[in-house]
């Protein structure tokens, strides 16, 4: 729209816009601190923060946000916030993130400077700690070869843990007949140690550098928000199932119910949609048109039949896996309305069929308790070969081309290669083999068993409820449309 004729001097904002439009100013240059505090500029920065926080804001939406801000009272924080929220955020889950970002981003100038100072401080401290880590972790006076991440882990350890590591190094350095050739071994031990700590701390939170923008001011906000978002969503969803305390089990049961119900409706919608792809049934159309004297008054359609898959679940219930098994069993049974049948087995030293327990309509907790009480294999060691052989001998007829075989296990079994061989023969007789591996993905690398089984199945990392939900959603959806 045209400018107001009665405007005396072009205001700074107008000039900025003109510069921008004419390309006088390189956009890149505007990232720096010397860019004044303009509305558009701040908005663009704010949107950048949102994007780094995982909120997808398109340029069209950004423009709309600007239009919206101009429509409300710019002096009123609440209205501006509402306006931006309505135009930039389109998802309920993203609203809390937006709100925090807004509150952190739009603050008085003094606060901003203060924040940057704190951040520079923190950064310096962090560098100092890394340096310290390097100095601390020495074997016979030589620095250990550790990754940046491992050093950072060390820096974040408590003093007692640090001391323990240092003591260990000091002791081993001075050991009898210990020379330089021991260094790789010592390094491995230290790495293993740090790795374990890192995993434990990861549950708390770390920021990936990829999430950051490089702009100090924005990064500070992003870090602050990311650090807090873990608590926003239900933490149980991203908790390792093994670590869920007993007192939370009723809550988990409820969450699983909710998740599966939602997933089941979603899947059944897919069925109906797949069935809807229909074409005209000529025979029936002509037949029904006879009564109208041959005029095809109403068209008749025929639709495709969609076959629901069967699920065959084989769950590892050896000592470390038992907790996963009970959650996953519950989850899979929550989907029973959208599959044609579920056959379930548990195994450790050998295999047991548990399907009959689940056929009665009782609360899941009771059924599960009964399974555990009656099972002779619950909590024993893992022997997948014997288990699969038992399966092949007694239940071979359950394998069919519309069955999805789901195996839940951490792959740590005796004779993995042999077991993989059996799995390969089973695979030919089913539609798909999905392997839910309860080991985190980053631990797969060193394990031969993972490699062996991976060749014969689609393997997914699955140690939290969130993983489980995502895998089942994707896999089931793919099979519906495919």
């Amino acid at each position, binding site marked *: 729209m045209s400018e107001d004729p009665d405007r005396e001097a072009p205001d700074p904002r107008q000039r900025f816009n003109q510069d921008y439009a004419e390309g006088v100013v390189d956009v890149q240059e505007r990232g720096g601190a010397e860019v004044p505090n303009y509305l558009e500029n*701040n908005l663009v920065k704010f949107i950048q923060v949102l994007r780094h926080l995982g909120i997808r804001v398109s340029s069209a939406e950004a423009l709309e946000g600007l239009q919206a801000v101009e429509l409300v009272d710019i002096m009123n924080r609440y209205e501006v916030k*509402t306006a931006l929220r309505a135009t930039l955020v389109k998802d309920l889950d993203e609203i809390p993130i937006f709100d925090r970002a807004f509150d952190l981003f739009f603050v008085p*100038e003094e606060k901003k400077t203060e924040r940057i100072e704190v951040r520079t401080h923190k950064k310096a401290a962090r560098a100092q700690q890394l340096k310290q880590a390097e100095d601390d972790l020495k074997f016979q006076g030589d620095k250990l070869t550790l990754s940046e991440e491992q050093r950072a882990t060390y820096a974040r350890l408590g003093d007692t843990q640090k001391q323990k590591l240092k003591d260990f190094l000091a002791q081993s350095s001075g050991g009898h007949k210990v020379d330089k050739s021991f260094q790789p071994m010592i390094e491995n031990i230290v790495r293993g140690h740090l790795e374990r700590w890192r995993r434990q701390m990861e549950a708390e939170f770390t920021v990936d550098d990829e999430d950051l923008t490089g702009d100090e001011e924005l990064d500070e906000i992003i870090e602050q928000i990311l650090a807090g978002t873990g608590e926003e969503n239900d933490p149980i969803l991203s908790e390792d199932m093994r670590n869920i305390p007993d007192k939370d089990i009723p809550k988990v049961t409820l969450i699983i119910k909710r998740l599966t119900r939602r997933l089941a409706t979603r899947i059944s919608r897919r069925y109906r949609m797949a069935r809807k792809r229909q074409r005209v049934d000529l025979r029936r159309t002509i037949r029904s048109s006879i009564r109208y004297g041959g005029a095809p008054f109403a068209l008749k359609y025929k639709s495709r039949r969609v076959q629901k898959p069967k699920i065959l679940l084989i769950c590892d219930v050896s000592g470390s896996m038992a907790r996963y098994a009970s959650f996953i069993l519950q989850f899979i049974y929550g989907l029973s309305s959208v599959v044609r049948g579920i056959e379930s087995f548990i195994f450790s030293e050998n295999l047991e069929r548990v399907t009959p327990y689940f056929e009665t309509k009782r609360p899941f907790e009771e059924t599960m308790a009964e399974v555990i009480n009656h099972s002779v294999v619950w909590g024993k060691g893992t022997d997948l070969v014997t288990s699969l052989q038992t399966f092949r001998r007694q239940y071979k007829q359950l394998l069919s081309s519309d069955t999805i075989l789901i195996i839940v296990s951490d792959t740590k079994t005796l004779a993995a290669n042999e077991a993989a061989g059996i799995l390969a023969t089973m695979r030919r007789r089913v539609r798909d083999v999905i392997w839910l591996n309860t080991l985190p993905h980053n631990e797969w690398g060193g394990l031969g068993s993972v490699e062996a089984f991976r060749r014969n199945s689609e393997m997914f990392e699955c140690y939290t409820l969130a993983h489980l939900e995502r895998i089942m959603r994707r896999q089931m959806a793919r099979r519906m449309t495919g």
Partner: protein
Amino acid sequence: MEFTIDWLRRAFEADGYISDEDIIVTVYLALRLGKPLLIEGAPGVGKTEIAKVLSRIFNTELIRLQAYEGLDENKALYEWNYQKQLLNIQAVKEDSQGQGAKDAKDAKDAKGAKPLGDLFSEDYLLERPLLKAIRAETTPVLLIDEVDKCDEEFEAFLFEVLSDFTVSVPELGTIAARQIPMVVLTSNSERELSDGLKRRCVYLHIDFPSVDKEIRIINAKVPETGPKLSEEIARAVNYIRFGLEIKKRPSIAETLDWARALLALDADRLTDSLVGKTANMLLKNKEDLDVLEAELEDRGVMSRVEELAKSAGGLAVGLKPGTTPGTMPGGRPAPNLPFASQIGGGPMAHITAAQIAGPQPGRAQPQQAPPGLTPSGSQRPRRGGSPMVPSPPRRGDPR
């Protein structure tokens, strides 16, 4: 007609719709930007009602399209009246045959024989809600209810229509809207909506009301309840909604039904036994009722409610873990002046002392923004005030 947020707020109030400030601001923006308004929220929080209120306060037609699975263009946009076309063909055919026989006798009838005419003309066009909204004489309110229920293909089609409001009917040509309808879409978030649709909409999420708001709603809709009882009802409902692990949280409509039921029982205050007796007005499935019953036996609901009310210091029980931040239970907050510099309305130096000294608590008076804050320095919002923002094509005023 131009209108302000203030006007809209008063209009909503006059219509008896008790709302939060964010609802008003968002609705206002959607209308002013000429964008569809997408409302999400649990069932029974008043999503559909917003469209109805809009149609009443702007005194215009409400065109409703109920989405469901299998809804297709034929039922949403237009359809040729197949039966009527066939009948016409049949009639013309019979006419000409009959006439052929009588031809020699009566030449007059020959003139009466109708020609077939154009079978694809307006006469045979069945208007469905979308086309109706596009061809309406005055700006209508188009309500697309439960849009999450429709299929994804239809959703894609829908956002094409919603983005330019033209429809092309191959036989008739392209029909463009005379004016952009006020579009309201509602969704129960049963399914993720596509990004495309979301991108084209202004988004509003309505949560279950705070205790304070629910009290106001009860007082507005069932005024006989009286202040004491209505507060107790609102608190109890809030507790049942968020304090108990239930499947289906009671909606506002159910709260109101409950209030009426309690009135019918001549209750003047809420007790555990009354809650137990009337619980089926609120909870509609056995498992939830069992939960409530267990709670009543266990520690009692009302004592717990009072406890919470006390600890919350009067109004607004902070029971819900994820209450939408920014929702102001107690009306709108006072304008925050230094905020102008935070959002970047220009350097602080532009704001004169007089302006700082005179913040208006209400919105009755438009605040004088410092130069450089709004495009024209005036409160009245204009479209496309700055060259950076391409002005949207003028599609007629929302009014």
